[in-house]
C-alpha cells in the first residue's frame, strides 16, 4: 500500500466518532427548530437540511486537511449565506489554504495532459463529483478522490445506522 496513505488523519475511529457527534448534534438542532413537517414542501426542505447536515458534519470531521472538505464547507457556507439573510449560528471558520489555491491555478495547464491521459469525460466527471476537484491536477485529484471515497463510506455507514435505529424506534 502506498505509505503516503497511511497517514494518521484517517483514523477510522476518530473520523467516525467526530462525524457521528456532529451529525447527531445537527439532527437534534433540526428537530428542535422545525416541527415535523406535514406537507411535502416542508418535507423536502427537511430532507435537504438533513443531507446538508450530513455533508457538513462529515466535512467538519475531516477538517481543513483535505481539499475536498474545505471545498465542501465553503460551498455549504456560501449556500447558507446566499439563502438566508442571517448567517447560520455556528459557521465554522474555514481557512482557505492559499497554497492549495495557487496550486490549483498552476495545475490548470496540466489538466490538458490529464485529460489526454485518462479520458476527458472521466476526469471531468470525477472533478465534478469530488468537491473541489475542478482545480486540481489528476494526481491530486486521485488522492482526494481516494480520501473522499473513504469518508463517504464512513458517512454512509453512520447514516444507515442512525436511520435504522430511528426507524426501529418509530414503528
Amino acid at each position, binding site marked *: 500500500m502506498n505509505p*503516503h496513505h497511511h497517514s494518521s488523519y484517517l483514523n477510522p475511529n476518530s473520523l*467516525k*466518532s467526530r462525524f457521528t457527534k456532529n451529525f447527531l448534534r445537527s439532527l437534534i438542532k433540526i428537530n428542535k427548530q422545525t416541527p415535523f413537517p406535514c406537507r411535502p414542501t416542508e418535507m423536502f426542505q427537511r430532507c435537504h437540511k438533513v443531507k446538508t447536515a450530513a455533508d457538513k458534519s462529515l466535512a467538519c470531521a475531516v477538517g481543513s486537511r483535505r481539499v475536498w472538505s474545505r471545498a465542501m464547507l465553503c460551498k455549504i457556507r456560501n449556500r447558507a449565506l446566499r439563502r438566508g439573510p442571517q448567517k447560520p449560528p455556528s459557521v465554522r471558520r474555514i481557512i482557505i489554504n492559499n497554497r492549495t489555491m495557487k496550486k490549483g491555478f498552476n495545475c490548470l495547464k496540466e489538466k490538458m495532459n490529464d485529460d489526454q491521459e485518462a*479520458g476527458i469525460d*472521466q476526469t471531468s466527471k470525477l472533478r465534478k463529483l469530488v468537491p473541489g476537484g475542478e482545480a486540481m491536477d489528476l494526481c491530486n485529484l*486521485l488522492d482526494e478522490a481516494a480520501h473522499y471515497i473513504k469518508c463517504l463510506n464512513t458517512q454512509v455507514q*453512520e447514516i444507515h445506522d442512525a436511520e435504522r435505529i*430511528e426507524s426501529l424506534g418509530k414503528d
Partner: protein
Amino acid sequence: MEKEKLFLNEGANSTAAVPIWNPCSFGMEMQSNKLNCCSDQLPNCFFNPNWDSSMDQSDPFASALSSIVSSPVTTSNAIPSSGGVGDPVMIRELIGRLGNICNSGETSYINNNSSTNTSCYSTPLNSPPKLNISIMDSQIMGNLPILGNGIPDHPSLAPFLADPGFAERAARYSCFGSRNLASNESELSHRLMPRLEPGKLQRVSSNPSEKATGPQANVNVDGNSNSDKKFSRLSRSSTPENAEFGDSRDESSVSEQIPGGKLSMKGLNDSNSRKRKAITKGKAKETPSSSLSASDSKVVAEMDESKAKRSKSKEINGDEKDSTKVNEEENSNQKQNKDNSKPPEPLKDYIHVRARRGQATDSHSLAERVRREKISERMKFLQDLVPGCNKVTGKAVMLDEIINYVQSLQRQVEFLSMKLATVNPRMDISMEALLSKDPLSFPYGYRSQQGIALPNGMFSNGETQFSTNPLNAVLKRNQCMQLPALDGFGDAPRQVSTFWEDDLQSVVQMGFGQNQLQQPQAFHADSNMPGAQMKVEL
C-alpha cells in the same frame, strides 16, 4: 584577495619579505583608515619581530601580521618594534585587511600554533603562509554564518599548515569565484573537512563547500563530462544529513561527515535550483554541483537508485516538481551513470529521478514519467478502495468504476438522509444524553444484539403509544433484533446497563418503570420480545 594570493605564492617561494609587497600596492590607502582603527600600537608593532618570545626572525611583515592578528586577543604581547621595513604603506594595507578578517579565535590559534614554518618566513609562530592560511580560514569561516564561535578546533588546523602546498591552495581558495580547483587540492579538501566538521556547519555559502569538495573533481565551468565521471564514483546512500539539507534549502549544508566523503551535493543542488528556479539553467547548476562532486563524497544522488525505490520517497516531497526537475537535469547530464545500481536509500525529502537505460532523458520526459508513476500508484490505491475492481486493468475502465462508485455513495447518502428526515424524530433527550457521553458507544451499541433493545427504548417518545405488535414485526424483521430471551423485567435493565453508561441507565430505568405500569400485559405476553418493554416513554 589577489594581493594575498600573490603574497602567498611568493611567500612560499621566496625568502624576501619586502619584495612581495611591491605588487600589492593597490588600494592601500583606503585600508589605512582601517589600520588606524586598530590599536594605536599597530603602526609600531609592524616591525617588531620580538612580539613573541619564540620569534627569532626579524621578518618585519610576519611579525607585524602576527601582532596585528593577535593584538585583539593577546594584549600582553609586546608590541613589536619595527625593523627594516620596505613598504609601510603596503604592509599597513595588508594588516588592515587582516585585522578585518581575523577573529579572535583565529588569532588565538595563531598565537598558539607554533608548527613548523614552511615558508621563507621562518617565524615559528606564524609564517605568512600560516597567517594567510589562517586568514583564508577566517575568510572562509567568516562567510559561514554559523561559525561565530571561531575556530573551535584549533588543532585540526595543524594538518593544514603542515602541507607545504597549503599556502598556494589556500590562496586559491580565497578566490571564491574560482571554480577551477586543481586535483592536487584534494588533500586540502580533506584537511578543510575536519575544520568544517567541528563547526557543524549548517549553512555554508556555496563557495566554501565548493572548495571543500571541489578539489576532487578537476572541474571547469563547463566540465560536465568531468562531472559525469565524478558522479559515477559517488556512492549512494542518502545520509541523515540530507533530511536536514532538504530542510535548509536556501543554503547547502555541509555534513559533519565530510571527511568520510558525505557531502550532500544534492542539498546544494537543490538549494541552487531553488534559488534559480529555472530548468534551463541546468548547466549553471551543474557547475557548482560538479565542483562539489568529490569522488569520495557520497552524493545523494539523483542519478542513483532505481525508480522503484524512489517512488517511496515521492510522497514526502512537497517540492516535488522543483526537485524533480533538478534531478532530471542532473540525470540528463549524467546519463552515463545509469548503469550504476545503488542500494536503496532511506526516504528523502524529495524525489530522485533516474534516467533509465534506453529511455529519454530530457527533463520533460522525466517529469512526465514521474507524474505517470504517481498517477498509476494512486490508481492502484483506488483500486483497493473501490470494491470489485481487482480485475480491472487500464486507467479508463478504472476511472469509470471510480466514478460510478462515488456516484453511488453520494446517492446513498442522499437517500439515507432523506429517509432519516422522514422518520419522526424521537431522540431529542436521549440524543443529548448520548452526546454528553461517549459518542462512540452510540454507533457501536447498535450492532450488538442486546444493545439494540435500549436504543429502541431511548428513541421512543412520550406521546406515542407503541403497540407491541408492530414492534414485534419490526423486531422480527431485523435479524439483528434476535434478542436473547429475557426472563424477567429485571433482567432487562441489568443487561442494558452493561452496554450503556450509568447515567443512561437511570434514564432507562425510569422509562422501564413507566413501561411497566403501562404495558404489563405486553411484558407477560411477549417474553421473547423484551424489546417491547424497552420501549419506554420518556
